């Protein structure tokens, strides 16, 4: 399993990468592997406020649909429209493929470091 060292992680297998004041968010390699072939991504709308407790997107594989949560609170500033035509990018490059960008972000307290996340997955 692949873990990106520049990201922080949630227990529900989402990653966040902070660059300046913007958060890039997506799903982890573990998550995409569990889901299998991803065939649809329900994207949020720019301007939507997201919180860690509400699903902002849903990702559908052939067999199942899975809600996606944001590791941090914030406001959607951009969505990755490439996923509309090529949802399988989440399978092939889970860390290079962000689902949304957020501004006005909350703290990253409570998220796991790459090492912690690796340990967390190993115990599952």
């Amino acid at each position, binding site marked *: 399993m692949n873990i990106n060292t520049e990201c922080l992680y949630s227990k529900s297998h989402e990653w966040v990468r902070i660059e300046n004041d913007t958060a890039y968010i997506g799903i982890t390699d573990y998550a995409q592997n569990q889901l*299998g072939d991803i065939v649809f991504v329900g994207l949020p709308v720019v301007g939507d406020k997201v919180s860690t407790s509400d699903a902002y997107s849903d990702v559908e594989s052939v067999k199942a649909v899975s809600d996606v949560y944001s590791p941090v609170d914030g406001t959607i500033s951009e969505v990755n429209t490439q996923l509309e035509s090529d949802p399988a990018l989440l399978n092939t490059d889970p860390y290079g493929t962000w689902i949304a960008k957020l501004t006005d972000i909350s703290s990253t307290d409570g998220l796991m470091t790459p090492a912690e996340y690796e340990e967390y997955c190993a115990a599952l």
Partner: protein
Amino acid sequence: MEKKTELYDRHVALGARIVPFAGYLLPVMYEKTGVIAEHLAVRKAAGLFDVSHMGEVRYKGKDALANLNRLLSNDFTGMYDGQARYSPMLNENGGFIDDLIVYKKSDNDYMVVVNAANRSKDVEWMLSNLSGDVEFSDISDSISQIAIQGPASREIIKRLTPEDKIPQKYYSAIFNSSVGGFPCILSRTGYTGEFGYEIYTMNENAVNIWDILLDSAKGDGLVPCGLGARDTLRLEAAMPLYGHEMDENTTPGETGLMFAVKMNKPFFVGKSALEEKGEPTRIRVGLKALGKGIIREKQTIYIGDTVIGVSTSGTFCPWLNGSYAMAIVDKKYSVPGTRVYADIRGRKTEAEIVALPFYSNAK
């Protein structure tokens, strides 16, 4: 505690993701391929499935045929040796106990293949309906079933089975056939909408047949396939699945299976209930999603604000490259071309009623 099929160790060695299903541990997909690649392999080349969970029972004796004709809605009179015939098995209210396939081995000797999840309830129902000179046995635990499906399966089987032991007609089988020298029943049937065979064999031959098929067909694009692809393939072919398109409260008319109900027979279980009910007011249809998202089972179908029915199964169909579903809707709104909405978890997505099947290449 789930049972393992004879092929369990093969699946693990091939990198299967194993799930419990109908009391068995079975591969849902293989890590190397995944559902989409496995699905496409069956459409373009061939796929190999372990379907040993399916149940098999036997009716033997001079009243075997009479029993089947009383218990089941189809008519099994006049079948030739080896012929297979699909049938609903109904309750007294005309709802489905199961759907199944009857094979005639010879006069007074029939094999019936039932859904794994319904096996114990089916056997109980069958036993309670026995009459006359017939010997009934549940032989499921001694039989393994392997399906090889896809256009390349014709050539693969040709290399491993003597020519006169290969069934030629769709829905027929040869009972004393073999694959790679191992005895089996070889049947021209399947659950994928594609040309292919189903192989029934005694448990001790299952691993040998599986290995010979995989080893001999490396150059043919044959890949092992899991339950995930089995489900997307059957859905793309619009084949009904028990628990989805039919259950104890659905009639054959509602799920579009009247071709297998012979109302001109003097009697079968459920016939009088079907007569009383008359023409059904709802019917199974196909849906193609036009908007975003994938229609799954149990989603409400609307025209405007009017609820017209509910989806029974749905997924992304890899070969057709779109979201398709089946639904049971009010007959008034069942005409292909009708625009409807599916409520996908609170989001209304437009869909069109389309003719069934979505895909077929089985014959």
